[in-house]
């Protein structure tokens, strides 16, 4: 690795100041992507700003009014360890428990997963499906953008120079709604998603009144498949509706062929997973008050 400088600020203001003052700087969360990139030479960062000592960023808090607040320094394992978070957002928790291994989940942050901007990130589709919002802080103060607008291209986010992601806010779920995230990998663990699908479904009685379907690893960024969602709203989520949603998702997908899978395969699995994920989200929603 080339030489680097390391700072561990204790406040957001201090972090923002360091980001502004440094050339070629990166925020260090769990380091599970960044250290690999530094060693491989794909990141040229010379100064790392470790945000794990900022108390405000270490907060994982849920309440029924405000929903879930995930500080940027919160590691994946903390979500699954919280029974209320697990029960309320099973799909998001699924996503965090699918990333890498136990070792990775001990360190990798949800914020970092989002900021790394990989098309195959697991938490991003789950967050977008839940309507999550990103809170940013920078030299011009704080602002918010929806999670679906955060990742612009592979490895590129909407963070302006000097900005860092401070927290992700997930709205409290509506009544009778639930989320689900599944991905396809060739082994049973440790692989990068070949296809990932996150969905959130809201029911009123038997009918679906709201849906979000998000596709991962089949485009340069996670894709909010609005036509797939529209195919579900107003239906009882019967097989025919699921099939239509799957068809729409397959159309929305823009997969590439790479060493992990051919594009045609990814497109087909997008349909398969959409059906499965929506069915499971619906089953969960039906079981809720």
């Amino acid at each position, binding site marked *: *690795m*080339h*030489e680097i400088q390391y700072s561990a600020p204790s406040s957001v203001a201090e972090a923002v100041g360091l980001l502004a003052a440094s050339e070629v700087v990166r925020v260090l969360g769990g380091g599970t992507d960044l250290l690999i990139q530094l060693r491989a030479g794909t990141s040229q960062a010379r100064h790392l700003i470790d945000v794990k000592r900022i108390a405000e960023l270490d907060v994982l808090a849920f309440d029924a009014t405000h929903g879930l607040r995930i500080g940027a320094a919160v590691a994946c394992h903390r979500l699954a360890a919280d029974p209320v978070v697990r029960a309320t957002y099973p799909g998001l928790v699924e996503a965090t428990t699918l990333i890498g291994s136990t070792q990775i989940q001990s360190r990798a942050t949800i914020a970092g997963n989002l900021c790394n901007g990989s098309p195959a990130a697991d938490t991003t589709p789950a967050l977008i499906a839940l309507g999550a919002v990103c809170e940013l802080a920078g030299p011009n103060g704080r602002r918010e953008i929806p999670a679906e607008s955060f990742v612009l291209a592979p490895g590129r986010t909407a963070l302006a120079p000097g900005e860092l992601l401070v927290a992700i806010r997930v709205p409290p779920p509506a009544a009778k709604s639930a989320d689900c995230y599944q991905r*396809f990998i*060739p*082994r*049973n*663990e*440790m*692989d*990068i998603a070949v296809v990932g699908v996150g969905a959130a479904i809201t029911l009123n009685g038997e009918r679906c009144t709201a849906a979000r379907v998000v596709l991962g690893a089949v485009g340069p960024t996670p894709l909010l498949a609005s036509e797939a969602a529209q195919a579900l709203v107003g239906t009882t989520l019967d*097989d025919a509706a699921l099939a239509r949603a799957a068809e729409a998702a397959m159309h929305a997908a823009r997969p590439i062929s790479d*060493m*992990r*899978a*051919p594009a045609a*395969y990814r497109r*087909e*699995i997008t349909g*398969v997973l959409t*059906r*499965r994920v929506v*069915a*499971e989200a619906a*089953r969960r929603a039906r079981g809720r008050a």
Partner: protein
Amino acid sequence: MEGKDEKISTASTGTGGAERTFKIVGTRPIRHDGIDKVTGRARYGADVSLPGMLHGKVLRSPHAHARILGIDVSRAAALPGVKAIVTGADMPPVKSKTEQSGEGTTNPRHLSDNVLAKEKVLYTGHAVAAVAAASPHVAEEALALIEVRYEVLPPVLDVRAAMRPDAPILHAGLRTQGLEPASDAQTNTASVVRFERGDLAAAFAKADVVVEREFDTAMVHQGYIEPHNAVAQVNADGQATVWVSTQGPFEVRHFCAEILAMPLSQIRVVPAEIGGGFGGKTTIYLEPLAIMLARKAGRPVKLVMSRAEVLRATGPTSGSHIRLKMGATNDGKIVAADATLAYEAGAFPGSPVWAGAMCLLAPYDIETLRIEGFDVVVNRPKTAAYRAPGASNAAFAAESVVDELAAKLGIDPIELRRRNGAREGTPTPAGPRHKRIGLLEVLDAAQAAPHAAAPLGVPGSATAAHDGSGANGAASVKRRGRGFAVGFWFNAGLQSSATIAINPDGTASLVTGSPDIGGTRTSCAMIAAEELGISVDHVRPSVADTDSVGHTDVTGGSRVTMATGLAVYEAAQDVKRQLCRRAATLWKIAPEQVSFADGHTVAAGGEHPPLSLAALGAKLSRTGGPVVGRATVNAQRATGAAFAATMVDVEVDLETGKVDILRCTTIQDAGRAIHPAYVEGQMQGGTAQGIGWALNEEYVYDPEGNLLNAGFLDYRMPVALDLPMIDTVIVEVPNPGHPYGVRGVGEVSIVPPPGAVANAIAAATGVRMTELPISPPRLLAALHAAGVHATAAAR
């Protein structure tokens, strides 16, 4: 009496110890190096640290095929902290010749050119220069400052493409060996091997059923978790010491001496503990670089490969293309077989195609056959041995075709193998007859195993290792099937040495030269303990360096417990003979009056109470001095070939092509299991590797010859969640050539799994996969092509 070759018991009674009752052999003692290994104290090669040690890094070619026009190291040499740099120009010229080594052959010129490229680079990752510096980070920075000018040439990456007349040629001077008549044409085919007997056309004409298939297997890596390492120190007088995680310290010494033009006596190789090898650490990569850099720098140098370097630049095993046609008559007799095998050798000749050709049909008694094998160079890393090298590729083809024959004939697959099964006296494909072997016993054990009678279970339901996905209408989306296959490996003999010193307290110090990869220190100690009649805790086994023990060939070829164990056995006989003479001296009786039984010297006539080793040990110095027993063996005639079988249940997701392994049993003839737990371990490990080979492991190159998946993320080996418990059945058909009946166990378990998995998938779906790995996209495409879909209902 000294020097006379009398023996208390012969090395081979021809029964393989069938008449013996063992006290220690067959038990499961804690291994002697166990505590060090569970506490992190054991020292592997990368753990070695010496005062003043420098760190080395290797510069590697970014091109798959190129001429080296020039190398300029001046800017690197000027970097503060850089102490030495070497390139191919620093190596002496080496003659090109073929020598036996381990289970294959080596050409020292090729070995030298692989260690550091000379005129050409032949694969991406081919070593071009090496640097020693004060820290690994500085060494890495120095690499970036070395300028190499290349003339890039078109690469050829595929075995069939390399055999075409218009293919780019890797070695201008290469001519195909084994061609008749010989050809002077430039070629990438290094050699042809051919076995044939009988009239093929006539035999096929007699067949009622014929199956002909073509198979492709991808290049795969041994996948040991420990990357290659070497630490070298060269003294002012030129004496070099190398600490290295290797399967063959004597091979390392020999190869380094050869390619560095050093006397053997100037190199001492100290084997560190080794973190896996599977054949991949029976050759050299870093050792000569460490020696050259240490000599230049005047300080010790440590080199350790990264994972990417291991995958890009150390020997994987061959990808292959195999065409196999087999014919059988309706009564289930296989009457003819015609096989063509083409194996990738990588950048230099030496694929295991000849072993593949020998093993392909070795389980079967086939009168008429023709097997032709081609060893072909391609712009990929030079292949190295991988656990029964060549046999898994071949068995994938053979076991698939045999299964198809069984289906067409309406005969149970195990029964078909039994009807055609090789036994003692059956000619192998290469000609020589099988000795006493255990194929039929393995088939019997397979049919009797609990797995054979167990139901497949409801598709989609959970098992202990597999959480099932009860939702999503799993029953209609999944299919289950059971597959079976057998495999053969001939097992090596080669040479080993051993000494046993008796300590004053009656314990024994056992010294061998066989690095311990899987518990062989302890199996050898158990043999010594058994023969000497002492407890296994009272034998202290150690693995010595090349100055401290007699020549010992590789830990590989499934030979350590057999051949080094044989040397240990013989050394123990030597000890017993000496102890009897010492007792005779003490008792003042004739040596012929003394025998050894149950850990005691016994006087004929019962006049003197028997003496234990502990009692004798205290008296050795006054009966003539220390007692050290020794033996050296060439175990070629003692070898016993091994058969294994794999039974596997799979579940296929018809919508994704994903395959899960639900249940697996491995059955193997071990001859005699010295330490059953470590025999089981070998069986389970080879089976797991075979499953990885079948399902997800493959080298993926881009058209320019860059390895795209040079890491454990995308070179997909099975993780704990990918496998169930692997049940083992040890069959013991004693090897008559060995006093305990031991057959090598380390390798053959990797041979049947790819065929077994393919057969299970065929049973589950009706689709025959002829390409490895059977990754989900490939299987799904094949399912579509065959019209196999999940049923619409309950989706």
